[in-house]
């Protein structure tokens, strides 16, 4: 049955472009410009979904984005707004949450039990027996609303951009367009955002005069330079300092784009939302709003029914009645609320409206009821700007009370009036918005506002027309369509003690669905006011929150920007198949296949490891020793040129924060290293000390982490290898002993420095090379050391090597409470220094006992590697320590550990009990040193 009308002057469909799509398994025709629902309605379809709780059939209500009954599944996309989304050729559209089918839905049996499913019924039942609750729960979950998401990763492309409009106008109706034009004429850059596909607002479905006004306004917008128009885009939120989120949906190359605008002034011109009326049967298919009727007829040329009753309290209802009559719908009766008319209930069933019962007792057969009972101001955006809307009884809707300077309103949200009055007011608003924006622009650029600024414009207020206050009729009906909440539910909840609007919202879930109160809120407030005997003003509203309308996660995420860091040697690691390790922002080689043999190669020959991520700071100036003394717990003012020293840093609370070596390369030139993960934190910490506490110190700190590629050359043959490549440095043990630093040329590269240290326990040199030559030096080392058996080693081998040597790792062998005294570094703390971070805490720490101590541990069964975090226990389940590091030592051929134990267990040789994750308990002994291998350190000093 075709409901399509002949050509309408304002229609948006393209009758030249005809195609088909699939709905509910069948093919349907459509025109370009049709929405999914308008195309279906044109074919006489009336039911598009089932309600969430009672599974009642639902049809059209608002014929707009908000339409609660028109949520459909499109391909793999759930909850598509069928009354907004344009239909496309071949689209596969299906109803949501119906089983087994839209026409016959077994769950609609719920409807019959509706009286038992009052709001909050689930709080009162399924309580006992407790073991059955999970079963009930699974059953309840079947009744959840919404479409289906699929587990296959989506390939959609979303992105974001920033914008800096002087004036951002939310809403492209007559008011928004006029404001935008006025602002642009006053010199502002304007962003005009309209939720629907075209500008025009309500003018689009208006009469000829209105269509003429629409054409004129569109022409003005198009010819005003400085206006960027974003159709099919929504202003989703206004955040602090006019940070405005806009969702742009009209793009060809992306699904959706989030525009983040720092609007200097925001003009809110969203018009008004038509409010449904609450009465028995108000959710029956065929009960629609006047704006829905007008949209269907005038935009899509669809006849909404055959025989109609119109319940009208305003011009919109009257205009709808005229539209209906003009499009061949029989208007059986216009019930005029302004003359005391009212409707009591709608009778109907699965197929829709059958008859309307009026308050005068008349029962009128019809298939369509159009209601026009009033408007809801979409105060959402101004609420987000901190405004508390106030209710105006005369106009029977809410208005803003106090807006910040950078937010203005115009159009329906600001008042009533003739089209001319509204446009004039909007123009004044637009001009004022531009003026305020110019002022803000100067502030943002650091300028001082000019004395001779134009005075604020006088914007005369819009008139307010009297409107009957119509919310609920004489019967109870649906208040929240998507949540299936009735007015009876609200009354019941109030009586049960949920007697404020916030509690009743949470108890009944009214306004918690997809429309977030834009359709439901005022009715809910009015019904609460009615039952409590309070006024609407006293009852207040719930809080509006972003987003204005639901936003895809994809658009919010946009392109995912997560900076990644690579060393200059990364291409080599990749070619050699290194297993990548994600270490914060860095990607590092974990190993090149076999970490154990990498370890042995370091012990026997020579290995090279890429340690570029080590934090590095270049420190210059006469006061560097002061700084070092301040940051580290040990002493630094006596470090000679050419030497390096190990240091530990604690925070003010005495907890170990970072460690590393620092070397003195010149009289006033030092290089500090930190852990890779600690680098950023240490850098900021230094800046903080220097900038806030010691601004007088003459020091320059420059982060140089990646100015140098860092390569540790370790193993008994490391000297031999370096001898082949190094110029300008005497590598002999006497000239370049342990813990010294030298500068020179390596593999032909100037400006390198290297220091000797013993993290791996072997003779080793940490070579720091100007980064652009890192790969060159690395490749040269590999080439020239081939006969020495040089091989790369990764982070895992390094962990094993250091564990063999008993070096702790900050963050692994320490935690958020560990102090230096707990890890055997008490001797390093120089309490006689004048000041250093954490000094008071460390002084007190030095005197207390009873804290866990870090010790070396070896399981008695050397083939057993207790997993890290295995607990050390006494008795039944008392925890007296834990394993913090644990590996099989390729060098020793046995398992080795570091761990914390209670103070009474620290004596070397003490047997402790380790509980493995499986529950098994195994013995281990405390070793004399943290180091399991070469505790005297003869190898590294060689």
């Amino acid at each position, binding site marked *: 049955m075709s409901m399509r009308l002949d050509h309408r002057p304002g229609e948006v469909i393209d009758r030249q472009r005809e195609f088909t799509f699939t709905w509910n398994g069948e093919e349907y025709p459509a025109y370009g410009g049709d929405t999914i629902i308008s195309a279906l309605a044109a074919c006489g379809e009336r039911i598009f979904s089932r309600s969430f709780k009672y599974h009642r059939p639902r049809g059209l209500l608002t014929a707009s984005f908000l339409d609660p009954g028109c949520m459909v599944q499109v391909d793999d996309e759930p909850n598509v707004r069928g009354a907004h989304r344009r239909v496309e050729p071949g689209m596969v559209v299906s109803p949501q949450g119906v089983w087994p089918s839209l026409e016959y839905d077994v769950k609609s049996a719920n409807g019959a039990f509706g009286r038992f499913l009052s709001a909050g019924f689930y709080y009162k039942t399924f309580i006992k027996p407790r073991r059955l609750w999970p079963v009930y729960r699974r059953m309840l979950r079947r009744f959840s609303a919404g479409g289906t998401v699929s587990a296959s990763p989506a390939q959609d492309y979303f992105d974001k951009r920033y914008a800096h409009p002087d004036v951002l106008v939310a809403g492209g109706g007559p008011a928004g367009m006029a404001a935008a034009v006025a602002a642009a004429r006053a010199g502002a850059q304007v962003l005009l955002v309209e939720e629907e596909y075209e500008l025009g607002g309500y003018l689009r479905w208006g009469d000829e005069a209105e269509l003429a006004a629409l054409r004129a306004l569109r022409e003005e917008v198009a010819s005003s330079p400085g206006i960027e128009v974003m159709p099919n885009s929504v202003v989703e939120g206004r955040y602090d300092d006019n940070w405005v989120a806009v969702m742009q949906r009209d793009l060809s190359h992306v699904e959706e784009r989030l525009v983040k605008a720092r609007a200097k002034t925001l003009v809110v011109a969203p018009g008004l939302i038509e409010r449904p009326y609450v009465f028995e049967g108000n959710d029956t298919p065929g009960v629609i709003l006047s704006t829905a009727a007008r949209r269907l007829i005038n935009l899509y040329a669809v006849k909404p029914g055959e025989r109609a009753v119109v319940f009208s309290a305003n011009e919109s209802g009257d205009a709808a009645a005229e539209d209906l009559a003009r499009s061949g719908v029989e208007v059986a009766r216009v019930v005029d609320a302004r003359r005391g008319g009212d409707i009591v209930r709608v009778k109907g069933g699965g197929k829709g409206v059958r008859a309307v019962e009026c308050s005068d007792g008349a029962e009128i057969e019809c298939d369509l009821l159009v209601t026009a009972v009033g408007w809801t101001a979409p105060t959402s955006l101004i609420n987000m700007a901190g405004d508390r809307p106030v209710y105006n009884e005369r106009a029977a809707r809410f208005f803003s009370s106090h807006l910040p300077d950078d937010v203005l309103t115009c159009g329906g949200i600001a008042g009533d009036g003739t089209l001319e009055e509204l446009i004039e007011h909007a123009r004044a608003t637009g001009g004022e918005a531009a003026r305020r924006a110019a002022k803000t622009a100067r502030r943002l650029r650091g300028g001082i506002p000019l004395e001779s600024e134009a005075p604020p414009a006088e914007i005369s207020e819009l008139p307010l027309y009297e409107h009957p206050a119509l919310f609920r009729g004489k019967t109870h009906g649906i208040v929240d369509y998507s949540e299936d909440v009735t007015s009876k539910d609200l009354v019941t909840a109030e009586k049960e003690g949920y007697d404020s609007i916030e509690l009743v919202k949470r108890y009944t879930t009214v306004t918690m669905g997809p429309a977030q109160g834009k359709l439901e809120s005022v009715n809910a407030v009015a019904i609460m006011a009615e039952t409590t005997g309070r006024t609407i003003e006293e009852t207040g509203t719930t809080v509006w929150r972003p987003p204005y309308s639901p936003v895809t996660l994809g658009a919010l995420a946009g392109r995912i920007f997560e900076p990644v860091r690579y060393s200059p040697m990364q291409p080599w690691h990749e070619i050699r198949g290194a297993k990548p390790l994600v270490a914060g922002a860095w990607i590092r080689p974990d190993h090149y296949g076999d970490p154990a043999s990498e370890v042995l190669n370091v012990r026997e020959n020579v290995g090279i490891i890429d340690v570029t991520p080590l934090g590095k700071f270049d420190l210059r100036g006469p006061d560097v020793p002061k700084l070092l003394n301040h940051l580290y717990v040990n002493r630094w003012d006596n470090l000679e040129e050419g030497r390096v020293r190990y240091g530990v840093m604690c925070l003010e609370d005495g907890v170990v924060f970072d460690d590393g070596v620092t070397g003195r390369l010149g009289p006033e030139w030092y290089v500090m290293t930190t852990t890779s993960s600690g680098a950023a934190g240490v850098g900021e910490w230094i800046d903080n000390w220097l900038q806030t506490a010691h601004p007088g110190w003459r020091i320059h700190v420059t982060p140089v982490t990646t100015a140098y590629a860092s390569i540790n050359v370790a193993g008994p043959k490391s000297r031999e290898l370096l001898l*082949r490549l190094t110029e300008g440095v005497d590598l002999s043990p006497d000239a370049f002993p342990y813990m010294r630093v030298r500068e020179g040329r390596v593999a032909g590269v100037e400006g390198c420095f290297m220091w000797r240290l013993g993290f791996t326990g072997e003779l080793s040199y940490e070579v720091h090379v100007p980064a652009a030559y890192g790969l060159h030096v690395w490749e040269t080392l590999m080439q020239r050391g081939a006969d020495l058996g040089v091989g790369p080693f990764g982070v895992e081998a390094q962990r094993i090597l250091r564990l063999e040597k008993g070096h702790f790792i900050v963050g692994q062998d320490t935690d958020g409470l560990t102090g230096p005294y707990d890890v055997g570094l008490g001797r390093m703390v120089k309490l006689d220094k004048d000041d250093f971070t954490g000094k008071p805490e460390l002084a007190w720490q030095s005197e207390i006992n009873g804290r866990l101590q870090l010790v070396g541990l070896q399981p008695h069964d050397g083939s057993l590697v207790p997993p890290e975090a295995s607990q050390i226990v006494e008795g039944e389940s008392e925890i007296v320590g834990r394993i913090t590091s644990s590996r099989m030592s390729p060098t020793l051929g046995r398992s080795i550990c570091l761990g914390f134990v209670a103070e009474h267990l620290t004596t070397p040789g003490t047997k402790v009990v380790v509980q493995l994750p499986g529950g098994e308990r195994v013995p281990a002994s405390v070793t004399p040193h943290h180091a399991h291998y070469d505790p005297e350190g003869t190898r590294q000093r060689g």
Partner: protein
Amino acid sequence: MVERAPVARSPIAPAPPTTIEYGWEISARSSDAELKITDCTPLAKVLVLAPMYGELARALGVPFGRAARDTHGTLVVGSGPGEWLLLAAPGTNQAVGKRVEVVQDEGLVSVFDATHGRALIRITGPRTPDLLAKVCAIDFADEVTPDGAAFRSSVAKLVTDVVRDDSGGARSYLLHCERSSGQYLFDALIDAGDEFGIEVDGFVDPGDRGV
């Protein structure tokens, strides 16, 4: 004793075909797209730290927030409070540094060769502001960031120095970041520029024009 001359490499993998020039491995590609991106890492980058209002500051002639060319064609960027970044032709690091060091300043002065520690990227074309608007929250309008504006901000979540340096009448920006994230930034810019048809253009020594 060293057989191979050292080759310097940018953190950004050069788009093939590649060649070695100025001691650097670079892309020899050439593009005439409207929107181009070039890895300029081989340029000499010298970092100067000195008092904000001292002799040296006066000699450099550029305050924080601005960039300008000196008589040698070196682009002097006021990159931070008491911090300048000098960009010059490849291989001129030492010479540029020396020119600075001779200035007498009462305060502490440090001069670093930052060539290795940083990556430098140039994007050129009329739609560069649109590209940047996708990755950086700063306003790229002429009134706010005219030619010669310099600032540090977050670009694709990375701390980056941005210098508006129009070349030959075309909108152009230099982006300067910490070396290890150079490839990341380059990729992010290409991703953002995709919709405007961005293409990689090889590096060419700007020669007499300086940078």
